């Protein structure tokens, strides 16, 4: 009801002087920022500013040339994406990366992979531990389906769903791993107003109900200003702003580089 009683925790993720270059192209230059527990942080900036690269550094797809990422107190330079996943980092993608021929249920179930411990044979035969595990996982997945209100498409192949719903399923798969930190790469790209409103509601609910920390990239300024606690602005791989939505809205450099002036 009121957002003010939501408590932010200690710093969960800290980027220190991150630089990343692909050959001669400098994608990120000397970027530092912090994410607090339970926070919704938006990364904004023009195309090619290095937003997706930043997410990729956080979840270990790219390895920075300089600087370090501190996640829950552990400093790291090199990490593989699956290690990020085991540590509670989940993400969605700019262009949907679901299994098109599989049902919504199965797609979300894949998000549970890391939590499955039964052996291959046991899973094939569906006995003992595998069976109990499957029931537990299915329950969790059903809770997510209920949470995202997609009961009616539970068994529909993802490829047959409209774009907005596919995005919601992708969020569901990310949630299935019970993430501590959720990275959303343009969760609302290509959506109509109603779909954006729905998605915003779900993002706020995830943050509120599960206490998940969220880092998101988004271009719709209305959405960004409404959703986020704090905003980091990138331009040509450099950080040019960091603050609350109000601060960012009044930041001269950000207005010049990105927001522009309304008449």
């Amino acid at each position, binding site marked *: *009801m*009121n957002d003010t*009683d939501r408590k932010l925790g200690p710093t969960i993720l800290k980027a220190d002087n991150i630089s990343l270059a692909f050959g001669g192209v400098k994608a990120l230059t000397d970027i530092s920022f912090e994410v607090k527990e339970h926070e919704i942080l938006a990364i904004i900036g023009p195309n090619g500013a290095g937003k997706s690269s930043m997410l990729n550094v956080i979840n270990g797809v790219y390895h920075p040339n300089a600087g370090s990422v501190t996640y829950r107190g552990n400093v790291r330079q090199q990490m593989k994406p699956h290690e990020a996943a085991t540590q509670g980092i989940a993400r969605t993608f700019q262009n949907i990366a679901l299994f098109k021929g599989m049902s919504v249920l199965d797609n979300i179930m894949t998000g549970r992979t890391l939590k499955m411990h039964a052996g291959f044979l046991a899973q094939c035969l569906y006995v003992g531990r595998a069976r109990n595990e499957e029931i537990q996982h*299915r*329950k969790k997945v*059903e*809770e997510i*389906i*209920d*949470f995202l*209100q997609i*009961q*009616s498409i*539970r068994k529909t192949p993802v490829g047959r769903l409209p774009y907005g719903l596919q995005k919601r399923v992708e969020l569901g798969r990310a949630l299935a791993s019970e993430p501590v930190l959720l990275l959303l790469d343009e969760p609302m790209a290509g959506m109509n107003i109603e779909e954006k409103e729905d998605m915003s509601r779900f993002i706020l*609910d995830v943050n*509120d*109900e599960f206490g998940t920390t969220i880092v998101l990239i988004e271009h719709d300024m209305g959405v960004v200003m409404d959703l986020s606690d704090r905003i980091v602005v990138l331009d040509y791989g450099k950080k040019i702003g960091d603050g609350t939505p109000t601060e960012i809205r009044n930041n001269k450099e950000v207005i010049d580089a990105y927001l522009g002036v309304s008449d």
Partner: protein
Amino acid sequence: MDSSIPNLGEDTLSSLIFKNATVRGAKTAIREKDLGIWQSWSWADVAEEVGLLAGGLAAKGFIRGNNLAIIGDNRPRLYWSFAASQSLGGIPVPLYQDAIADEMIYVFNDAEIEFAIVEDQEQVDKLLEIMPQCEKLRCIIYDDPRGMRHYNHPAVVAYEDVRELGVKFLSKQPNFVESELNKCRADDVSVILYTSGTTSKPKGVCLTHKACIEVAQGDMGFDKYTDDGEILSYLPMAWVGDHLFSYAQSIVTGFTVNCPESSETVMIDMREIGPTYYFAPPRVFENLLTQVTIRMEDASNFKKWLYETFMGVARRTGLDIMDGKSVSLKNKFLYALGNMFVYAPLRNNLGMSRVKVAYTGGAAIGPDLYSFYRSIGINLKQLYGQTETLAYVCKQPNGDARIDSVGTPMPGVDIKMGDKGEVLVKSPGLLKEYYKNPEATRESITPDGFFRTGDAGFIDQDGHLKIIDRAKDVGVLNDGTMFAPQFLENKLKFFPFIKEAVCFGDGRDAVCAFINIEMDAVGNWAERQGLGYSGYVDLAGKQEVYTLLQDCIEQVNRDLAKEESLSGSQIKRFLILHKELDADDDELTRTRKVRRNFVAEKYDGLVKALYDGSNTCFIETQVKFEDGRTGTISADLQISDAKMIQSTEDLAA
């Protein structure tokens, strides 16, 4: 629970639940799909839950004579709320959940609501918003805790917590519910159902326990309902049909009620449950058929051929077989073949494999629609009744169902004709009164105890009741031809492309019509024609769509030309509305009936344009969204002529 039947006083709906707990305690009373699994409660479970909730309500201060508002989708806990309030001598007042704020405020104040049980956050928000205008409202109980964590309003409380209060309350006073039940009389009002009111403010229809029980028993005898039946409850709880069928009937007969997972999953849930009894307004049957038609059009050629061939067989012989008439051996064989390849799979797909009796009512059903279902082996019948008669007036008997009648009077029902052919009814289900509205009660019930239905009709020589139209709506054209608008509109609405139609003609030279297109069907058609469109307004204005609809209207005209008395009321001109008629804009009632006079006034300019011969007309309309905001839509509407068929010679040509 004790094995002997406890003394619970006179038979009321709530005491019958407790009796069911002893008579058929282990049988499943209600199911709900939750997290993808059907959860069940036996009659013994239900009695326990009802008792605990009643205790909790009592602990919160709910007393005899209080009214309890109930708002939400069909959920077990909300059905238990009916019983819990009734057990305490209170009266449940179900409300339509999509009702806008003004309507809700009116009902809350009229019924002096202090307690409300609602489904979820959405309803809680709505009630908190109107709370300042509803002075008496002091307790809002919610079922689904999702999103409710930060609510600290003193009036808002979780169902779980009320139940918990009930556990404590009953541990101190274990005989409380039983003694309260003993004070309830069969003549007490058991529920107040607010009618949507086509013309005025909603009126609260007070029905008694006795009426509910007698009607349910009458229906049970007539259609041989048994306690191993299954029904799916997906229609609004505030509607008399759902209250009778999913609540009263289930308690009296003891069959199982199934609550769908969400309103979007009804079709899937229906297929899983396979209900044995099914009740739906014509619109639902129409939507199902539209879906079947659309999907058949996308099917492969062989399947299309199979479908068309055997639907032809069904059209020729299906009805006779359903009515138990004798059919030639060859036709019997063809129908059996069709049943194997088409009808049975189709019934299964619709979730109607096990349906013994299906009913429709509330509005007239198109003849083709009606015979479609009957011919594929679904025993679809019509019934006739109102909220005021607990939907208990006429039903079509098995083997004697006719499309043009609504059936014969039910046991215990007395029918006579009033002025202008108005149907007057005396029924065991008759309302006790309109809540706090003696004037309306006097107007609606004759001194000798008959209810004025407001429908014009007659009883034919076989004892079947036939309804023509609303008594006040039947009019005449300037040349003296009879004009029955609903009759025409129903004919139009049968086309899958037409969602809603409004006909004008009383006191005019000719009949003209407004049409609402059915977005799904027309959209699908447009896609197959390779016709691009950006949305409803754009699609509705396309010349191709006008041509498509002109065909439909001319077909209706051809039908009308065959009937001498109606031949003059063919449709001369029509237009396609730029927006869907909507209950939020007061254009439809909550049960989706067109409010013809309101529409005529609102679109006065369009009606004029229909009659002054112009080809286009500009219109700007205000629309109201569900959250109460308003916006406008504007469009240049095209007006088209339709060919009128003069006589039978034209038909031959």
